């Protein structure tokens, strides 16, 4: 027996038919699958991708243009160090369920935390400046004036982060950043001398004709500093904590980190190979990248007259993503370490430190690019050197934490881990020393 049902008024949005039932089935959600895939992308892969930001693109392009393929060998030790550093951080995050700054506060107390916070703010502030340089450079190639590009980007980020749906925007930027895979395709189309590249990748060379030792140290530190950034470590540990990975999943977490690191370093190496082949075909000319136009030329064999647009699109996407994430995550981890109120939903009066840091980093990041005559490539590469100089500080904190028996128990570092970690920190400190000596006494080393 069918019961009579109420019939609904046709004007209502909730149109119920004579049987009293809605006759509007949900539309098929084809996009949902893609979003879900992106949502479960491992933190390791996302973080590695975030490493190929404005600073990375310019630094790698500069390396290829200035040194040809002769510095390719550096990517092997960089990969080893990147994997090991990220693994330590991922392990700390998985086992303790706490962020890196949290652990520093709990293990080392207020004074060291203040020191670490200053280092993180300076390093991330520098990187934020580099991202705005990327935004200015990318939009500049598309014909947008620098003040409009920079102020517009800062306002957009402010609104998106404080008001809008950040997740969706983040993914759009991330997808744009993926256009840098086009470097791999370009490298394959220009047919470089693969034999010579293979040799360069495994035979270490410190030759730097036409470049002073000081400048060489700067470039080398920048190369390491942009591949293994302080903020990648903070970001990786936070996302692992947020994801709630379990100790049982540690091998999966490691696989994710290794995959991400390999992907990042392969893309980086291909940027160097491509720029070496296109911008420095005659061998060691010793001239670096000084403008976005120049860097974009590397994609000409692939994209022809659209090389600048392709380069610009990727650069803007990657830079905007990082420029939004950096100030926010920096403000967040610093506030967390000091127990200060932190939430984009609070008012300024409730979370003064949080908003001061977030807005301050945005303003500084955007502000530097507003000074007339500031070189986009110079800023993007210089800040990576700063990252490289500050990385050992964070690395030492990570090493001590990863050796803490109370924190990690049986999962603390083994001797190989420590040896490589100390070697990386030592190398960077040594290079910084060379840089300082070469800057103070320019005549000392040709």
């Amino acid at each position, binding site marked *: 027996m069918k019961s009579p049902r109420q019939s609904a008024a046709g004007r209502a949005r909730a149109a119920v038919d004579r049987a009293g039932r809605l006759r509007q089935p949900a539309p098929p959600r084809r996009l949902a699958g893609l979003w879900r895939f992106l949502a479960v992308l491992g933190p390791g892969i996302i973080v590695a991708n975030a490493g190929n930001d404005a600073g990375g693109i310019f630094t790698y392009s500069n390396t290829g243009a200035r040194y040809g393929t002769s510095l390719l060998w550096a990517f092997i030790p960089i990969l080893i160090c990147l994997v090991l550093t990220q693994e330590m951080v991922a392990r700390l995050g998985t*086992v303790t369920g706490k962020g890196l700054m949290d652990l520093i506060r709990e293990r080392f107390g207020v004074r060291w935390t203040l020191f670490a916070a200053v280092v993180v703010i300076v390093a991330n502030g520098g990187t934020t400046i580099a991202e705005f340089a990327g935004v200015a450079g990318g939009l500049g190639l598309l014909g947008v004036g620098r003040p409009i590009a920079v102020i517009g980007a800062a306002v957009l980020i402010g609104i998106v982060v404080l008001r809008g749906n950040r997740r969706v925007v983040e993914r759009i930027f991330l997808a744009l950043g993926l256009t840098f895979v086009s470097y791999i395709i370009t490298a394959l189309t220009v047919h470089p001398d693969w034999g010579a590249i293979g040799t360069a990748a495994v035979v270490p060379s410190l030759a730097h004709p036409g470049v002073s030792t000081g400048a060489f140290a700067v470039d080398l530190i920048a190369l390491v500093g942009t591949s293994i950034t302080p903020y990648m470590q903070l970001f990786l540990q936070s996302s692992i904590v947020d994801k709630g990975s379990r100790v049982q999943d540690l091998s999966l977490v490691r696989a994710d980190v290794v995959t991400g690191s390999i992907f990042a370093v392969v893309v980086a190496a291909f940027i160097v190979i491509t720029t070496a082949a296109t911008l420095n075909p005659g061998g060691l000319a010793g001239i670096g990248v000084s403008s976005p136009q120049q860097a974009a030329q590397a994609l000409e064999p692939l994209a022809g007259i659209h090389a600048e647009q392709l380069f610009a699109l990727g650069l803007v996407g990657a830079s905007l993503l990082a420029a939004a994430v950096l100030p926010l995550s920096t403000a967040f981890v610093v506030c967390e370490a000091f127990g200060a109120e932190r939430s984009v939903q609070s008012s300024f009066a409730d979370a003064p430190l949080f908003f001061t840091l977030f807005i301050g980093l945005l303003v500084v990041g955007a502000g530097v690019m507003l000074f007339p005559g500031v070189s986009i490539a110079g800023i993007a590469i210089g800040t990576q050197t700063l990252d490289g100089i500050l990385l050992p500080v964070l690395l030492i904190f990570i090493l001590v934490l990863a050796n803490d028996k109370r924190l990690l128990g049986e999962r603390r570092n083994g001797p190989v881990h420590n040896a490589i970690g100390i070697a990386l920190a030592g190398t960077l400190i040594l290079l910084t020393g060379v840089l300082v000596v070469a800057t103070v006494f320019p005549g000392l080393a040709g």
Partner: protein
Amino acid sequence: MIFLSDFLRADVIDVGQRRVGSVRDLLVRMGDPYPVVVALALRSSRKLPDVIDWGAVRQGESNELALNVATTALKEYQATKDVIWLARDVLDKQIVDTDGRRVVRVNDLQLQVSAGNLLLVGVDVGARGLLRRLGAEGLGKRVSRLTGRNIPQRLISWDAVDPVHSDEESVKLRISHRKLAKMHPADIAEIVEQLGGRDRDAIFQSLDDEIAADTLEESSDEVQAQIIARLDDDRAADILEAMAPDEAADILGDLPEERRETIIAAMEAEEAEDVEELLSYEEDTAGGLMTTEFVAVPAGLTAEQTIDKLRELEPDAESIYYVYVVDDDEHLLGVLSLRDLIVAKPLTLITDFMIERVVAVPLDARPEDVAAVMAKYNFLAVPVVDDDDRMQGIVTIDDAMDTVMPAAVRRRARTL
């Protein structure tokens, strides 16, 4: 006021006024209402015990502690399980402020002498505590005098906090979060969201299944997934069983397939079946939104019999307002409100006063449309039927609300 930071690094001198070392930490025995300092951890270059009884210390200045026994007579303090190290286990850690209902970080600890004992009485969570730790409290005072703005002292009484204290060993000890467990689940959820993984584990281990389930229901989707991800299968299954099936299905739906299956396998057969049925519907439809917990009765009953049936079933708050009348094949015949049932004469047949024109939604209806129907007819719950008009479940107002609230309001801040 005396603070732990005053003691840390203070010199320890022996009976002959010679410096023998400095203070590394103070140890307290947990007690009600205030923990008592029972021992002193020593940092010394000499061959002295690491931890000595507080009884060997003469009470006095906090910047210099004098021993009242010869150093040769000092013995290693034997700590019991209820003794914790203040600097190592509490200072700089996160702690739950049960009055303020939030998570704070311990910047310093306030001590007080009472009847010959040194007691832990309060937690400093303010900027003054940070400045004191940096050795810059004087500077802070000068700045505040200059600017005319006072840097507030933010102290929380020890009896209003619940230490999270999540070292591997103490998690095993299962510190009882008695104060926490008495809070409203929505408040516990908010606190849990602010804590890291291991701290969350510690809290969830101490809560019973019912409270844990309520807390989980009040948490945001992301946090739910994170919490379940870190629990072992059996415990996760226990908590999910205590939840409403639709909530449990939502959480399980967000887990990786493999993990979802092992948890469902660990659940009781009946609950597992409900959850699996709900999981088979698309998330963004009435089927995905509904719960299978509703009251359905056969047509032949009287009002009195129906009320008896309600007593027997003990339905949840969300599902008690409507009683659905169905035939043997679960076809929907009518609906009774709780009010109709109570005001009706006990012996009246329910078919005499039930509303026969039941508004229902199909399994594949969009959530927005379900919410619109409920808003239009002022329903607290709306039945969901399949293509043959058989009743499958109900969508309750709280779940429908979630779909129409602006997404930004629901989304939590923490997405780094």
